[in-house]
């Protein structure tokens, strides 16, 4: 039962992060290392707003997500946009950005471990196992967000534009889609997704300024395993790896150290059989 709950929570967190990551990769070809750094910033935002300032948890959730999204956009305009044509430069700019955000948080909140109170307390029991309402809330929010995202991508004009841009940039550009504006919008969505993840997962996690590193690796594994740019793939892969982690942690001794490696080994094994990931499409080689 514990495995089920942990697996579901980890899986849904990874799904949200991975979808955001692969969206921005698909549209703007940016490998955003700083993606999980925004998730950390959001978690700290909600810590500051709801614990230090004592605001209503739901209000502070809204403010945190908006704040993170605005930060993401400003940072994108300032440091990423001017060097968009240079792939390597963008890559290390995002790495440096992640380090920068980590250090800013370290200065503001120190390196102490922090925790956030649950937004709704209480729990109920099924068959002797405690399930906190917070866990239900987290899972529910994740499902709603995923549905909304699916609707946005599949049923609206914006979603069509994003998907076509991910498929073929040049043709999409020729069809009159504004590449840089679309990149901005996608970045906003992607960062907002990272922010929402941070906000809903934050209360279940321990906060510290290095918390972005672990999910970053597993998130990348999810993205690769599911196939780059495939939302469905990310979703399935996230739950596969989420449950793997939960299984390893609960069943294997010293599992806490091995949960990352086992997930990564699964990813590598799958890639050996299907180099384009579970649901990825094998593109013709770009030249």
């Amino acid at each position, binding site marked *: 039962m514990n495995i089920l709950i942990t697996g579901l929570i980890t899986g849904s967190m990874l799904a949200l992060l991975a979808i955001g990551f692969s969206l921005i990769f698909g549209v703007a070809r940016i490998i955003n290392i700083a993606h999980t750094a925004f998730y950390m910033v959001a978690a700290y935002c909600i810590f500051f707003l709801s614990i230090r300032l004592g605001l209503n948890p739901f209000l502070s959730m809204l403010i945190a997500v908006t704040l993170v999204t605005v930060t993401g956009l400003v940072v994108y305009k300032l440091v990423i946009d001017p060097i968009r044509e240079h792939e390597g430069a963008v890559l290390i700019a995002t790495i440096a950005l992640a380090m920068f955000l980590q*250090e800013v948080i370290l200065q503001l909140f120190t390196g102490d471990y922090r925790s956030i109170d649950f937004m709704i307390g209480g729990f109920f029991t099924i068959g002797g196992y405690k399930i906190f309402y917070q866990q239900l809330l987290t899972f529910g929010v994740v499902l709603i967000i995923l549905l909304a995202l699916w609707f946005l991508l599949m049923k609206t004009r914006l979603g069509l534009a994003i998907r076509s841009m991910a498929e073929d940039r040049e043709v999409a550009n020729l069809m009159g889609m504004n590449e840089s504006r679309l990149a901005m919008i996608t970045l906003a969505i992607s960062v907002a997704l990272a922010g929402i993840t941070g906000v809903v997962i934050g209360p279940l996690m321990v906060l510290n300024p290095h918390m972005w590193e672990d999910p970053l690796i597993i998130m990348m594994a999810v993205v690769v395993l599911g196939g780059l740019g495939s939302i469905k793939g990310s979703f399935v892969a996230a739950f596969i790896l989420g449950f793997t982690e939960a299984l390893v942690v609960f069943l294997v001794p010293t599992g806490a150290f091995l949960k990352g490696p086992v997930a990564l080994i699964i990813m590598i094994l799958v890639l050996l059989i299907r180099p384009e990931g579970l649901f990825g499409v094998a593109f013709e080689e770009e030249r």
Partner: protein
Amino acid sequence: MELIIFYFKKLFKILRNEVLVLPSRVVVGIFFIVLLGLPLITQDPYIIRIVILTSIFAIFAASWDLLSGFTGQMNFGHALFFGVGAYSSAILNIHFHLSPWGTVPLGAVVAVLAGLIVGIPCLRLKHTYLALTTLAFPLILLGVIIALPDISGGELGMTGLTRITNSLLGNYYLHVVTFLVLAIIMWKITDSNTGIIFHAIREDELAVKASGINTIFYKLLAFCLSGFFAGIAGGLYAHYMRIAGPSTLELSLSFTVVIYAIFGGAATIYGPIAAVFILFPLLEVFRIWPEYRMMLFAAVVLIILLYMPEGLIHWIRDKIEKECPRCKVRNVATRKTCRICTANLD
């Protein structure tokens, strides 16, 4: 006697006609002289220590460039080779009591094997998939190492390795000379036919295949060579610091080396080396404000990238030198005509 005079004259001629005409070559010459002559100026253990560590990381950054800069096989897990080199040297030294002269090369050989192990599955992957997959390898090894504390020391790492020499100057010259020799070897590799094939694989792998070149062999060769040099760097680091810990496999080390290499300018070998020699001491300078150290470092990288997205060294080189449009020979920016073919520059 006459032969010696002849060689001296030849050396002088090369120096005047080939080295002194280009500022970049002069800078490299000065760099060699300063590095070798530094102990004459100061023997401060702190400065010596920083230069030694800088040299080790310069080998490491250059080896990343050899693989990822040249063949375009983006390796995000380069710390794997460094860590494998460090840990295998440490295990050989502590459990088998081999002298450092044996452990460092053996560690490098193990790192070559690691290069093969990583390289073979990665042959099927391209671009981003490759980058994100290579990221996984050092972390898998890290997890295994922490889970097996008896052999590897667990989270604390293995301490108490023997130093190669205990004298300050001996250590300095050993590391600096190793670095200079390895840097020249790497530069020569990239300058040879093999290096040209590496370049070609990055630009257009299909065309290289179509020309009848075995790209699989050359890609694996790049992985092995890169692993070898990084393994040496790791072994030297372990013996110098007398510890092989989990920090040699961490994500941040993999990322730092990417920052060094791209910051300096990828696919040049000297770019990453220059970047390490600028950024690593800079990090030490920032110890004046210890709490803002990494923040300032990240900010410097971000700001310099805004102005020089191609890399620092490419930018500087373009400012002080220009290429002759007719014979493609490089000239000082102040010249009006080419030094070889007298064609009008600009």
